[in-house]
């Protein structure tokens, strides 16, 4: 008791008080840091770093730059009007000779071929003819191996493809290319597929999100208003899709939807149709399976928001003379907007990255952008293109998220 009084009465210098406060806060901050440290590390290692390297890969241009450094350095000073000087020819011959027989040559060939189809043969043939016979000047030797070395355009090509970074992939991903004069122009029609794919990705995502919302909203409302016992049963049904792997669910849909599948048999048996209806390997099958898989992502946020809306609001609206349906629309619905926003955003963003379902259940015209990313990484090992498409996808997602925060996120935080 006396001790307590003494400490309470003893004047504490403000400086000491501040120091004690800082000390206490430092300990608390250290504790927080220790707690979130593992997560921060995990996010850094599994998210930030891969995305950063992805962004890097989409503009990285190592093939020519890495293998013909000296030649490219010499080309820096080249005027570009006439053929380069002898030293440049000699350097190219030297560096190609060094690279001959290694994968580097194939990489250079592939890279140049992307800029201008047909250039692969130029590089491969030249590499095969190297080294030049003793005493042959490099210029004559190279032109003899392939006449295209005698054209300034070939050297322009080499110089353009030789930068450390390139916008080539990113431009291609939005169906743009750089013409000989350095202007950005539309890609030739046979290569301009990505904008269509992007549009298709958006359209399909919007459709799936809309269907999920239409199906999920009444379901969530039912769950929020039913007594707990029934609501829990419904919740289990909603979560059921989560308990099986996506592949199993897709396979199940194949069984159901195929021409000899259950649904078609039922339709024909009841006489609704004569011949089986094509429901697989087209848009319909993709939509059905995607909605099925993504529905919980819509229902759960909606449910949690609706659960927090007291029933008194609806009663109040009705008691004020507003008919029930109109009350629902004018009072209840606006309060569910945060849930609709969160659910729609979640479903939409998941849709944008969907790959396996369209790949297995869709036809060639139902593939989304992820299909092409997978194609470039798995089949042609074109990291540049795969990364560029990923960047486009990421950018589209971020823009969308920006809209969400701007137009749906803020007003509701106000209202709360």
């Amino acid at each position, binding site marked *: 008791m006396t001790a307590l009084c003494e400490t309470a009465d003893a004047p504490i210098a403000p400086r000491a008080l501040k120091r004690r406060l800082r000390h206490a806060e430092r300990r608390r901050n250290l504790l927080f840091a220790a707690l979130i440290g593992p997560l921060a590390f995990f996010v850094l290692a599994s998210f930030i770093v891969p995305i950063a390297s992805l962004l890097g890969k989409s503009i990285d241009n190592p093939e020519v730059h890495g293998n013909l450094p000296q030649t490219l350095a010499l080309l820096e000073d080249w005027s570009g009007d006439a053929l380069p000087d002898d030293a440049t020819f000699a350097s190219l011959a030297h560096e190609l000779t060094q690279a001959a027989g290694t994968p580097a040559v194939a990489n250079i060939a592939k890279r140049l071929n992307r800029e201008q189809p047909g250039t692969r043969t130029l590089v491969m043939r030249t590499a095969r003819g190297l080294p030049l016979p003793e005493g042959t000047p490099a210029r004559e030797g190279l032109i003899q191996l392939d006449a295209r070395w005698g054209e300034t355009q070939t050297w322009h090509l080499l110089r353009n493809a030789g930068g450390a970074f390139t916008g080539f992939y990113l431009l291609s991903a939005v169906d743009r290319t750089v013409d000989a004069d350095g202007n950005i122009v539309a890609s030739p029609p046979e290569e301009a597929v990505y904008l269509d794919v992007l549009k298709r990705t958006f359209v399909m995502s919007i459709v799936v999100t809309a269907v999920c919302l239409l199906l999920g909203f009444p379901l969530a409302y039912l769950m929020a208003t039913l007594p707990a016992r029934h609501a829990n049963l419904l919740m289990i049904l909603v979560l059921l899709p989560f308990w099986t792997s996506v592949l199993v669910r897709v396979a199940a849909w194949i069984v159901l939807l195929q021409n000899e599948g259950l649904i078609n048999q039922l339709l024909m048996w009841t006489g609704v149709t004569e011949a089986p209806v094509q429901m697989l390997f087209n848009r319909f099958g993709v939509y059905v399976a995607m909605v099925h898989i993504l529905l919980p992502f819509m229902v759960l946020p909606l449910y949690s928001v609706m659960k927090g809306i*007291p029933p*008194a*609001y609806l*009663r*109040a*609206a*009705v*008691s*004020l*003379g*507003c*008919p*029930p349906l*109109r*009350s629902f629309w*004018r*009072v209840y619905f*606006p*309060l569910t907007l945060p849930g609709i926003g969160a659910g729609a955003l979640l479903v939409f963003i998941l849709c944008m990255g969907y790959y396996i379902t369209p790949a297995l259940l869709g036809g060639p015209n139902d593939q989304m952008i992820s299909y092409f990313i997978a194609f470039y990484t798995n089949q042609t090992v074109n990291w540049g293109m795969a990364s560029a498409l990923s960047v486009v996808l990421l950018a589209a997602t971020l823009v969308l998220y920006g809209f969400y925060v701007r137009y749906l996120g803020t007003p509701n935080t*106000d*209202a*709360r």
Partner: protein
Amino acid sequence: MATETRQAAQETPPAHVSFRGVQKTYDGENLIVRNLDLDIRRGEFITLLGPSGSGKTTCLMMLAGFETPTAGEIRLGDCVINRLPPHKRNIGMVFQNYALFPNMTVRENLRFPLSVRKFSAAEIDAKVKRALEMVQLGGFENRRPAQLSGGQQQRVALARALVFEPQLVLMDEPLGALDKQLREHMQLEIKHIHQTLGITFVFVTHDQGEALTMSDRIAVFNHGVIQQIDVPEVLYEKPANAFVASFIGENNALSGRIDSRTGDIVSVLLPDGNRIAVSAGDAGGPGSDTLVSIRPERVRLARERAPRDNLLRATVLEHIYLGDHVRLRMQVAGCDNFTMKTPISRLDRCPAAGEHVDLALAPEHLLALAA
């Protein structure tokens, strides 16, 4: 007798709201409201008072249309409204937690019932302005409910229930969430609004002080039955049964047995052998058990006795000083929770604990109620 009833029927105007034989059960087993008969007069302030779970809200909800009676009928004016949907009843309602729409401003909240009724924009603005002035909230039109204090939200809810000029307003414990001071202030304010508008108010509370302050009449509920319905004074002075006596105000209850009865006075035998004369309440005939009830402020010391008063010996157990008055807890006739409340000015000396005093209990203040 017959002429009397006819006269009474002529004098009382037709009830604004009447419950006839109304029953309600939620689960088909327990009757939450049993056989409710209640007439609410036009323009009166009636309070439904009762402990938690006694069915007050249920009654209010049936009147508002959110619950349907299991049996019986509810009339509003001349029409049976059992099947009338709530939005067509034109009844203003204030909910316990106000239920102000959080995504709308104060003005939008008040406009809501008016826009539904298709008033012109000018009329709407005028009515909203008037309603807000009535609750002294002019200037708060553009706030959202979250930006208002509890008392202000309460006023907005009241204004919203009144803005469309209903003839009947229901309030379900509207002051429950406010602190004591604000609650007392709002009680008076609501009372004044009632007096100004002259419309019928049905108010639900479980706070008896609130009910006594505000109401023209109070209906005391217990277990879904109206125990008594009367003006506050009668409810307090002449409780119909032991429940009402104990629920409203402070009360002393001495248990005893009825000995004999002469007119309105019964003689009650207390456990200590004393006999006292008591006004007959709802207690049964001679031989039945009774609870004799008396308000603490009606207990006097023997020197103030009137000729007919009963004298009882008491032992003081405790005295509590409360500034303007003193409370004495005493043991009387086997009950050691007997309280006396007296202004300091009427005591020349405060009896100490352990002291014996004689009490004078007037028969008209003692009430024999069925145990």
